């Protein structure tokens, strides 16, 4: 590969890396804000309902996850993460990617045919008539989940980008051994 082509590719990779870094910073700040909001809304719910009504007594020690993490490989070595509702059939993937369903909590199982029962809303662990702050907490944490998957994909992409750049720089050095 000629040196100018390599340089052009290096430049574009670098630009993409910097863009990804900026996006990562932004998403991290939003995730922190959402998680903080979620915890404060939980504290507000405890204020309204009583301190022992929103706590570890209300949930079982073993729980079925509501969302699963779906990993797919877009390019060689680059993995993307997506958060998917449990109980929803994932569409057939056409292409080079290999799809794997990984459960985030609970025992590791091979993918089974989906059960017909809809997963229960965890909000009902705290009663049917829950205050608004508890619903707000649920919404904040749900947004946070989405962001977490995006951040994981971005970080993967950044690592992959850095490896590519390193590889290209090696190649350039070999082509132009005397170049500064």
């Amino acid at each position, binding site marked *: 590969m000629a040196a100018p082509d390599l340089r052009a590719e290096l430049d574009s990779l670098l630009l993409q890396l910097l863009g990804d870094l900026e996006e990562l910073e932004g998403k991290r700040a939003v995730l922190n804000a959402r998680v903080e909001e979620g915890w*404060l809304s939980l*504290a507000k719910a405890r*204020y309204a309902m009583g*301190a022992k009504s929103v706590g570890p007594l209300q949930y079982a020690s073993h729980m079925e996850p509501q969302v699963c993490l779906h990993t797919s490989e877009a390019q060689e070595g680059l993995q993307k993460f997506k958060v998917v509702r449990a109980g929803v059939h994932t569409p057939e993937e056409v292409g080079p990617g290999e799809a794997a369903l990984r459960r985030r909590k609970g025992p590791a199982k091979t993918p089974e045919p989906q059960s017909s029962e809809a997963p229960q809303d965890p909000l009902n662990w705290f009663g*049917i008539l829950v205050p608004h702050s508890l619903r707000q907490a649920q919404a904040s944490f749900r947004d946070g989940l989405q962001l977490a998957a995006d951040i994981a994909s971005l970080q993967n992409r950044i690592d992959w980008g850095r490896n590519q750049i390193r590889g290209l720089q090696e190649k350039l050095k070999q082509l132009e051994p005397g170049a500064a």
Partner: protein
Amino acid sequence: MLEGAELYFNVDHGYLEGLVRGCKASLLTQQDYINLVQCETLEDLKIHLQTTDYGNFLANQTNPLTVSKIDTEMRKRLCGEFEYFWNHSLEPLSTFLTYMTCSYMIDNVILLMNGALQKKSVKEILGKCHPLGRFTEMEAVNIAETPSDLFNAILVETPLAPFFQDCMSENALDELNIELLRNKLYKSYLETFYKFCKNHGDVTAEVMCPILEFEADRRAFIITLNSFGTELSKEDRETLYPTFGKLYPEGLRLLAQAEDFDQMKSVADHYGVYKPLLEAVGGSGGKTLEDVFYEREVQMNVLAFNRQFHYGVFYAYVKLKEQEMRNIVWIAECISQRHRTKINSYIPIL
């Protein structure tokens, strides 16, 4: 009962009234709250609380100090004071104090049943139950499968027995039915307590009846607000409203038909007391409906101390102490989460 409590009250209850007024004087002041709000860690909070009437109540706690431990210790302390009043009381004050404990018993029963649903061990839940609502048959509650089971086998000997009339059914106890059971028991309890105070007459009725009417109306509003968007039908919702209070009966009928917050607000507009409360919800302070109702409750309870020779001072003291505990827990949560923007949302009492 002869009118003229001034002549007879102190014979049986004067000592306890003096005691409860002394306890009320030791509630945290505005200056105490200002000191607490400036704490950086929970250890600081513990040190500041040592200078108040709470003293060394956290001295035996192992590190790390959590908000949950602070709450449990404060509850134990309140329970100790209340049991002293209860053990030294004579009739009819002892019946009045027993009525006060029934609300905590209902909460404990529901906590135990929910725990059974989630397959928790009884010992774990018993540790978290409210100490004021203790009764001997508590450990057996998780065995019951239907409300009639629960009543016949377990609760028939407790003070909760008379509240079960509307709740007997063969439905299995799942989340919806447990919630309905909780609200129906509480409704029955409030109505019985109200009748007791009214029949007692005298200053007690004059002080307690408005407070209990407010409690009934507050429950109606909160049940309505929380039921929007859930699977609870309007007919079911109407059966949960207590049948007394300012809203009974026309307001309750209107509330049962409400479908969103604005419709609820238009119902409240008919009542001079509730109109400004509902209008204060939202706005720049971000107040919730529960906040405005807690504020109003504090106002009414503080006013109860302006009159003498009635049992309302005991009820008012316990409720004010609970509000103080809620305030301290809120401040502690804001400190431990390092999220201090809303730390001043507590309700000052004195």
